[in-house]
């Protein structure tokens, strides 16, 4: 397509004309264009349900963590009343950050600038509580209600805490839709807890590259992570193929790798009873066949139960949650949480933690390969911006495949075999819809 000079084309017109996942193509400029990014912060991050914390990170009344929604700092807190809320981390007086730590515990936040204080439930409590200065400075008094902390909508599912600024949009359950069935397997199968704190590191890549990778890219494993086969850690180059590709709609996506049923479960026997109490028969049967399980909840929360690796005589895996937190059009901060079953046996916790750190995360042997790809894709995306003819990304894998029918019990469009980009195409359809939605 020729634009005859991009200056004459608005970013929304260009998106409307060129983001064509239905035809198996998406233009490269959308990944790292500053104008696209500015609009994404409002229309994608401003309107979607965003993952902000796991309940186990804020276990007690008064405990809180500092998180980010889009680029806005927020406090996710369990109030003294036990209710979890999400507040803009900004004093109502002059906009100073109230919480400057990664996490903490207390009955209130007091602004370090002028002493404006807020209860853990968000209520304004006065300035320099107990001192006479407030009466002198504000002889007419302060409007307590008007100074309540700005609060996002905050809801939970299976221990995952989400928040959104879309105050009259769909409920979290409706937003998750068919994805709930799969999240049950991921984090609802047992009582889960975050181990320690998330790893955080900065990758010079645009946030959609890793999000689309977790959504729909099982095909990269044989090439990008070829060392696994080279070192005889997997049977062959096709270790990413067997299983299902899931397109649950709403821009999310999953890939579920499975092993033959006769191999038995790779999950520890000590937990089978708890799993059975939390999952239905179909979910339970699928759980016990999992070899790996990856996906992304639109827009930027990814998850992974990586390939089980045999350590001694035990199959080990260490699951994780990810956030691809944008810090500009071409940079992100990666957050990686390791979760484990709270009631799991010690060997499962100990070996799972080590396996997770060694294979994924900041130093993980897999993640190193991935960050390399995403960084260099981003460099090309930046350099494609000034071109008048679009640089197209190829998105055709599985475009003619038909989803399975009743033979797979889970909801959404499910395809036999992991090699498809169907949910990636849905990701960009959903993204385009949000980006073009005027309000």
């Amino acid at each position, binding site marked *: 397509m020729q634009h005859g000079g991009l200056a004459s084309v608005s970013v929304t017109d260009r998106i409307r004309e060129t983001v064509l996942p239905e035809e198996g193509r998406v233009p490269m400029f959308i990944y790292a264009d500053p104008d696209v990014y500015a609009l994404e912060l409002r229309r994608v991050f401003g309107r979607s349900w965003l993952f902000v914390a796991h309940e186990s990170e804020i276990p007690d009344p008064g405990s809180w963590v500092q998180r980010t929604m889009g680029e806005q700092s927020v406090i996710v807190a369990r109030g003294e009343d036990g209710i979890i809320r999400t507040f803009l981390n900004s004093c109502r007086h002059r906009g100073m950050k109230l919480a400057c730590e*990664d*996490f903490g515990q207390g009955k209130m936040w007091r602004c370090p600038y002028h002493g404006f204080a807020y209860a853990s439930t968000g209520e304004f409590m006065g300035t320099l509580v107990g001192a006479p200065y407030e009466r002198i400075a504000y002889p007419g008094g302060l409007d307590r209600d008007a100074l309540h902390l700005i609060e996002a909508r905050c809801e939970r599912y299976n221990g995952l805490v989400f928040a959104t600024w879309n105050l009259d949009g769909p409920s979290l359950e409706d937003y998750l839709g068919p994805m709930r069935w799969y999240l049950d397997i991921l984090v609802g199968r047992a009582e889960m807890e975050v181990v*320690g704190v998330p790893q955080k590191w900065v990758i010079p890549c645009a946030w959609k590259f890793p999000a689309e990778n977790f959504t729909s890219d099982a095909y990269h494993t044989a090439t990008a992570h070829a*060392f696994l086969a080279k070192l005889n850690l997997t049977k062959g180059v096709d270790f990413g193929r067997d299983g299902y590709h899931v397109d649950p709609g709403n821009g999310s996506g999953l890939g579920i790798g499975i092993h033959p049923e006769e191999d038995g479960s790779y999950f520890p026997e000590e937990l089978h009873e708890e799993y059975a109490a939390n999952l239905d028969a179909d979910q339970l049967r699928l759980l016990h066949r999992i070899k790996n399980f990856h996906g992304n909840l639109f827009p930027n929360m990814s998850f992974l139960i990586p390939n089980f690796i045999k350590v001694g005589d035990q199959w080990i895996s260490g699951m994780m949650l990810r956030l691809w937190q944008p810090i500009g059009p071409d940079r992100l901060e990666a957050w990686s949480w*390791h979760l484990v079953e709270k009631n799991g046996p010690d060997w499962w916790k100990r070996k799972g933690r080590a396996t997770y*750190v060694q294979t994924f995360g900041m130093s993980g042997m897999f993640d*190193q390969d991935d960050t390399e790809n995403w960084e260099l894709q981003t460099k090309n995306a930046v350099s494609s911006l000034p071109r008048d003819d679009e640089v197209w990304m190829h998105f055709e894998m599985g475009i003619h495949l038909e989803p399975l029918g009743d033979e797979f019990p889970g909801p959404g469009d499910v395809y036999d075999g992991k090699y498809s980009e169907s949910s990636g195409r849905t990701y960009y359809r959903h993204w385009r819809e949000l980006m073009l939605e005027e309000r």
Partner: protein
Amino acid sequence: MISVDHRLAVQDFLVAEARLLDHRRFEEWLALWTDDATYYVPIRVSRKMPAPDVVEEIGLFDDNKQSLTLRVRRLGTDVAWAEDPPSFTRRFVTNFEIQPEEGGEVRVRDYLLMYRSRGDGGVHDLISGEREHVLRVEDDSFRLAYRRVVLDQASIGTKNFGVFL
């Protein structure tokens, strides 16, 4: 008070080790580690005083000899993209605090500053931290039995740890 000879032997060992890594002589580097080695990098967090700012429950590295061996074997393949072409690194090892030998082991603390540059754009990353080692005395030299590195960032400013600390 430790002897000058003891101090120099320990310093020389750690300086030579840094040189092996900077010159990508990973097999020789791996051979420095004992079979029961522990290599751990905890996570630093931003907290108000006096709360501890190091979280031990999970790390950025959580390795033993077996996993270090796997990392080195991986670097030896032709598909270790993240470090091929490799980063240019320079490890500056300073501020040694060396304990006397005790039971065949020497405890050491030092500071590490690693310069890392990869690709174009004329940019580099600096990785700074304090390290603790246990060196095991063996045949007039040492082997590495334990290393713990506390880094000086809560959000790490390099894209991955495809490099050893």
